[in-house]
Every structure is written in structure tokens, then in C-alpha cells.
């Protein structure tokens, strides 16, 4: 008796929803970034679960999640760099105030 | 089949000019102008080669066909992917060749006419050549996809050419232009998608084959009602471009606000794309529906003729007169189409070419007059024939051509269009013929008042044409007279193409 795939999917769904909620409501840009990482992790979890329990189990899911991780790492690096640059110029990490492109 | 790349070369040769212009420093104004003008000779020369090599006994020719995009649309029985191929297909026949040649000629002459432009020349010429690509492409595309692509490609340069280099209210005119044509394009796109989804092909030849052959298995996919709807949609989409009566107001603004070379291009060629599309896609694919609709074509044509003519008689601005006269003349094209016989179609195509030449000539002259006097209001002008006899003479000649004087191209086209329509709907045709009187009235009123009559003192010292201005005038007038005296130059290449269009039209042949 193994854990059914739906359980993993459920955990991933909860993670995703929590991350989404965080990304939509938090004002500190760092936390928003963290929430996005959470969502990415949820996706990874799904990918890996499907790699084992999917319709066509294959190693591909794991490879995809690896790629996701790499991209996420890159994203975080650049994101933090942008934040720091922004902070230097505007003295804030508040998302609400980041609307220069609009103004 | 051996691919002939001449059409692609013509179409994309302006790209070379664009690249060269991009690397030319902004300050070298003279060089930019020279490149911009000489660059248009490239497609012109190749178009002339095309004209010389055109085989009168063949229909579609200079065909180029390459694989381009493959859209996967599903699995077949064997489980392998099937693709919907969109090919890069160019080709030309008797109906599009005259228009392509016209585009090349007007393209060069309007570039010469751009010599007077002053601001941001590099951008101007880049956009100008981009526009050329679009126009050449529309006339040589052989499938719906490419046609639409090039059709849209003309919108963007015109928008900027109009919005940046136009007269006082240029931005409004540009927005209106984009709004209208955007709507037209949207309808066009929907119609194209509907055709494509139902028939699984976008190639003109195949579509015609399928749509006009009742035995074809695919042909049954489209009910007559569906086809009628498609035809009407195409009519509206191209009608906006043409423009047909209730959709004309964008074109007035463009004609008044755009710089003279752009108006030349616009009224000489861009309007023609609407009529060309209506023939090539509307009538060619849905002949039965077009025949059914032909009474409406005639009615819309008559409305255009009279509406344009009557309004042209009360306009104060020369440009407005010419704009309304374009509406009126496009009505004649519709009459030619409505005839649904070879004479009418031939008349319509003649009218496209002829009006292209004439309106280019007249707008060019109005631009020249504006240059000298700073106005194009009829009442503020007058008597300039004293100081500018050459320009005035050509203007008068152009005006006479526009009102359909025999010996010039306008007559042949109007005569053929009316003659064709007389074979189908004598009453409508007779009413259309009366339109000729109205044309006379507004043309003479405008030209005589603007150019002849007593000379106000402030207009006594105007320079006559410079060589740079005289060249386009002489060339245009020469071509107009050539077609008027020897129409076979245009009609002979057409015959084979008419053979392919007309037999599929129900009812009387020609």
C-alpha cells in the first residue's frame, strides 16, 4: 500500500494556493519572491509525483523539475539583484510603490 | 516546378534600402534622399522586367512556392502527426500584374515627390520602403495567409507616415485610419479563418478550385448561405478599404492630412487593394454569391458615384474635392464588378490602374501648389496658370483625364465598366452614365476656379515646375495617355486571367 498520487497532488495544491495568496497580498517584495518560490515548488512536487505515478511514468518529470529549479535559482538571483538596485534608488521594498512604469 | 524568385525579389528589394538607410547617418540628408529615391528604382526595373517577360497566353505565372510553416493539427490513423502547411506562395496573373507595375511606378514617383520632405528623413524613407514591401506583397501573394500578412503590413507604415509627417490634424486622421482599417482587417481575418477552417487550405488556386467546383468533395462543406455570409463579410472588409459609401470618412481625413507623397500612394494603390481583394478573393471564390449580390454591388456603386460627385461639387478644399472624387471613381469600379462579365471586370481593372495614375498625378500637383502658395483652398487660389503654365496645363490635363476624356485612361475604364454593366443591368448603367455629367461639373468647377480665372496679386510670382517635379508629372501623364490611346497594353495581359474568372460566374458570359 503506497501513498496515492492524489495525496501528493493535494499537498502541492495547498502549497500552491498558499504561495499564490502570499504573492497576491504581501507587500514586502522579498516575501512575494519567496511566495513565488513556494508556488514553483508545488509545481515541482506535481512533476515528480507524475514522474512516478503518472499515466506514462518516466524520468522526464524529474528532469523538468531540475530545470525548473535552475530557472528558479536564476530568477531569484536576478530578482534579488533588482530589488537591491531598486532599494538603493527608492529606499523601499514595498510592492505597492513599485509602479514607476505606469507613472 | 521551378521556383521563380523575381516576385520575391521585387517584394523584398525595399528591405535592402531599409538596411542601407539604417546605417546611414542621420545628418547626411542628401544621401538619404538619394538612397530613398534611387532605391525605388530597384523594384521598378524588376517590375518592368516582369512586364516584359509576362506571358500573355498563361494565367498565373512567376510562381514561387516554398514550405514555410507547418501547423500540427492532430494525429492521423497511423498515429503520426499531420500538419497543416502554410507555404510561401507568390505568383502573378493578368489582374495583379498591372497593379504591381502601377505600384512600382507610383512608388518611384511618390519617392521623387518626397524630395520636398524636411523632417526626419531617414525614418520617413524607412517607413516608406516598408510600405512598398507590403504593397508589392499584397499583389503577389498567392494565399490568404500571405495576403493578410502583407495587407496588414501596409497599415503600420501608413499610420506613422500619416501621424508624423501629416498636416495639422494628422494624429486624429491617423487614429481614424487605424480604427477603420483595423475593423476591416478584423472582419477579413475572421472570414479568412472561416474559409481556412472549413476548407483546410489557404492557397488561392486550390480555393478557387474547391469553391467553384460543385463536384469537389470539400465544396459541400459550405452551404450557400454560409458562402453568402462570407461574401458579404469580405465585401464589408474590402469595402472599408475601397471605400464604400458609409465607410468612407476615414479616407477623407487621410487624404487631407497626409503628406502629398503618402496621399499619392494611398489613393493610387492602397485603395486599390480593397478592390483587388474583392475581385481576387470575393468574386473569384464566391462567383454565385457575387452574382446574387451584384445588384447591390451596382447600387453601392451608384451611391458612391453620386454621393462622391455631389459632395465634391461643394467642397472648398482641393484635396477634399479629390478625395470625394476618389469615392466617386471607386463607385465605377463597383459598377464594373457588378456587371459580372469580362467587359465589366476589364473596365474595373482599368479603372483601378487609371484612377491610380490620375489621382497620383492630381495629388502630386496639389502638393506642388501647396508648396508654392501654402494653401489648397479653392477660393484662395485662382489664376495661377499665368505664372505656372506648365503645372496648370498638366493639372487641367489630369482633370480632363479624371472626368473621362477619351484619349486618356479614364475614358477606357469608365467606358468598359459602363458597357459591361449595360449588358447586365441597363437601367443601373444608364444612371451610372449620368454620373459622368456630375463628374464633369465638379472637376471643372474645382480646376477652373483654382487654376484659372483672374490672378490675385499675391499669386503672381510663383515658380513653375522644377525638373524634380516635372519628371513625375510627365511620366504620369504619359502613361495615362498611353493607356488611353493604346489600351491593349493593359488589356492583352488581362485576357487569360479573365478567362479563369468569368466562366465561373453564372449567367451571361462576356
Amino acid at each position, binding site marked *: *500500500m503506497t*501513498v*496515492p*498520487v*492524489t*495525496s*501528493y*497532488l*493535494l*499537498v502541492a*495544491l*495547498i*502549497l500552491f*494556493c*498558499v504561495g*499564490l*495568496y*502570499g504573492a*497576491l*497580498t*504581501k507587500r*514586502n517584495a*522579498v*516575501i512575494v*519572491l*519567496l511566495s513565488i*518560490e*513556494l508556488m514553483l*515548488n508545488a509545481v*515541482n*512536487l506535481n512533476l*515528480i*509525483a507524475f514522474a*512516478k*505515478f*503518472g*499515466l506514462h*511514468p518516466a*524520468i522526464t518529470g*524529474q*528532469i523538468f*523539475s*531540475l*530545470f525548473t*529549479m*535552475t*530557472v*528558479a*535559482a*536564476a530568477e531569484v*538571483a*536576478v530578482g*534579488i*539583484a533588482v*530589488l*537591491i538596485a531598486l*532599494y*538603493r534608488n527608492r*529606499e523601499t521594498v*514595498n510592492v505597492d510603490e513599485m509602479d514607476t512604469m505606469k507613472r | 516546378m521551378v521556383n521563380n524568385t523575381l516576385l520575391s525579389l521585387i517584394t523584398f528589394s525595399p528591405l535592402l534600402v531599409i538596411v542601407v538607410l539604417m546605417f546611414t547617418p542621420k545628418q547626411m540628408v542628401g544621401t538619404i534622399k538619394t538612397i530613398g529615391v534611387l532605391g525605388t528604382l530597384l523594384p521598378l526595373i524588376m517590375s518592368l522586367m516582369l512586364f516584359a517577360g509576362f506571358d500573355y497566353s498563361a494565367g498565373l505565372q512567376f510562381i514561387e512556392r516554398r514550405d514555410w510553416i507547418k501547423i500540427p493539427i492532430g494525429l492521423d490513423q497511423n498515429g503520426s502527426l499531420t500538419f497543416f502547411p502554410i507555404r510561401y506562395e507568390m505568383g502573378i496573373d493578368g489582374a495583379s500584374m498591372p497593379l504591381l507595375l502601377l505600384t512600382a511606378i507610383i512608388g518611384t514617383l511618390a519617392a521623387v515627390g518626397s524630395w520636398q520632405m524636411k523632417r526626419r528623413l531617414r525614418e520617413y524613407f524607412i517607413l516608406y520602403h516598408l510600405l512598398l514591401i507590403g504593397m508589392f506583397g499584397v499583389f503577389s501573394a498567392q494565399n490568404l495567409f500571405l495576403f493578410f500578412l502583407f495587407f496588414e503590413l501596409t497599415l503600420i507604415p501608413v499610420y506613422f507616415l500619416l501621424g508624423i509627417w501629416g498636416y495639422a490634424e494628422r494624429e486624429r486622421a491617423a487614429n481614424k485610419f487605424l480604427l477603420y482599417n483595423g475593423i476591416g482587417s478584423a472582419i477579413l481575418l475572421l472570414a479568412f479563418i472561416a474559409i481556412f477552417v472549413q476548407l483546410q487550405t489557404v492557397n488561392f488556386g486550390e480555393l478557387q478550385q474547391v469553391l467553384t467546383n460543385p463536384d469537389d468533395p470539400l465544396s459541400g462543406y459550405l452551404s450557400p448561405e454560409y458562402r453568402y455570409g462570407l461574401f458579404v463579410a469580405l465585401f464589408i472588409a474590402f469595402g472599408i478599404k475601397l471605400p464604400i459609401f458609409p465607410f468612407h470618412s476615414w479616407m477623407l481625413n487621410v487624404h487631407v492630412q497626409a503628406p502629398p507623397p503618402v496621399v499619392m500612394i494611398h489613393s493610387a494603390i492602397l485603395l486599390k487593394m480593397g478592390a483587388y481583394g474583392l475581385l481576387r478573393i470575393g468574386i473569384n471564390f464566391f462567383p454565385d454569391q457575387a452574382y446574387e449580390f451584384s445588384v447591390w454591388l451596382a447600387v453601392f456603386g451608384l451611391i458612391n458615384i453620386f454621393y462622391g460627385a455631389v459632395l465634391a461639387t461643394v467642397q472648398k478644399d482641393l484635396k477634399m474635392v479629390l478625395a470625394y472624387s476618389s469615392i466617386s471613381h471607386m463607385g465605377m469600379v463597383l459598377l464594373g464588378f457588378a456587371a459580372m462579365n469580362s467587359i465589366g471586370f476589364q473596365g474595373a481593372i482599368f479603372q483601378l490602374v487609371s484612377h491610380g495614375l490620375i489621382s497620383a498625378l492630381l495629388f502630386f500637383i496639389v502638393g506642388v501648389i501647396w508648396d508654392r502658395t501654402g494653401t489648397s483652398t479653392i477660393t484662395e487660389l485662382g489664376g495661377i496658370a499665368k505664372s505656372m503654365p506648365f503645372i496648370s496645363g498638366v493639372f487641367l490635363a489630369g482633370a480632363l483625364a479624371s472626368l473621362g476624356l477619351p484619349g486618356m485612361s479614364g475614358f477606357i475604364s469608365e467606358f468598359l465598366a459602363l458597357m459591361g454593366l449595360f449588358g447586365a443591368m441597363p437601367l443601373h448603367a444608364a444612371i451610372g452614365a449620368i454620373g459622368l455629367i456630375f463628374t464633369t461639373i465638379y472637376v471643372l468647377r474645382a480646376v477652373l476656379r483654382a487654376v484659372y480665372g483672374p490672378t490675385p496679386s499675391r499669386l503672381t510670382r510663383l515658380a513653375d515646375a522644377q525638373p524634380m517635379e516635372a519628371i513625375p508629372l510627365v511620366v504620369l501623364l504619359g502613361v495615362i495617355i498611353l493607356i488611353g490611346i493604346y489600351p491593349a497594353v493593359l488589356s492583352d495581359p488581362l485576357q487569360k486571367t479573365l478567362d479563369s474568372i468569368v466562366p465561373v460566374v453564372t449567367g451571361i458570359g462576356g
Partner: protein
Amino acid sequence: MSGQFVAFFILSLLTIGGAVFMISFTRVVHMVVSLGITFLCIAGLFVMLDAEFVAVSQVLVYSGAISILMLFGIMLTKKDDVEPKAHRNKRKLISFLLVAALFVFVFLGIQASPWPNPEAAPQPVEQSNPKQIGLAVFTRYVIPFELVSLLLLVALVGAILMAKKEDGK
């Protein structure tokens, strides 16, 4: 109730708990730490799913690199490291409702879908997990792999460029 279930239960509880704590803490540093726990537990879940290599990568990249990077980010922007308690209840409510709706629909979707029997899942093959991954990455996915390395390089350069203090300031 096998050990597998117990492990799964604990891991998922910690995972979700970390995430929820991350959302509800007010101090930013606390948030990062709780998220670290989440990342670790996800690595545990990966192990349960026979993805050892990915689990290790998860620990290295997420729990290690990313969390630390975040901490650095917080330190460098340290001014208001407390999540401001602004009155954004309306926004929060709408967000919550929508997220909840999403949850419900996806949940229903998961429930409604037929899933292959987990028992029918193939037993792990003889090859070790890293070897499998290595084979796949260096044969079939070699181009994406190279592209990803390029991406990392670009991100590296870009991040340095952006975060670097501009001259004269």
C-alpha cells in the same frame, strides 16, 4: 498504516505548516526560516517519490542557496524588515476568496479524475536515480541543458551588474 503513510503525513504536515507560518509570521527573517523547513520537507517528499537526485538538489538549491540569498536580500534591504500591517483587508479578502475558489475547483478536478492505481506503478528500475537522470540529460535533453547553463551564466552576470553599486554613488 504503513511507515510510508506516517512519513508522508509528517512531511506534508511540516511542509504545509511551514508554508502557512511563512504567510502568517510578521518578521521577515522568521518567514524565511519557516520556508526553509518547507523546502526541506519537500525534499523528503521527493525521496518518497524515488527522486533522490532531485531531493538532494532541492536541499542544495532551495534550502541552501535560495534561502540564504533571500536572507541576504533582507539584510541588504533591511529597513522595514517587518511586514507592514497595512489595512488591506479588502484585497486580502478578495484574494482569499479567489484562491479558495481555485483550490476548490482544482481539488474537485483532482477528485473527479481517474488516476492510475499507485500499485501498478512500475517498480524502480535497476539503474540508480542519478544515473537515469544523467543519461536523460546528456542524451535527449542535452540542448535544453546547455541552454539552462547559458541562462545561469546570463543571470549571474545580470545579477552582478544590477546589484553592483553604480559609479559615483
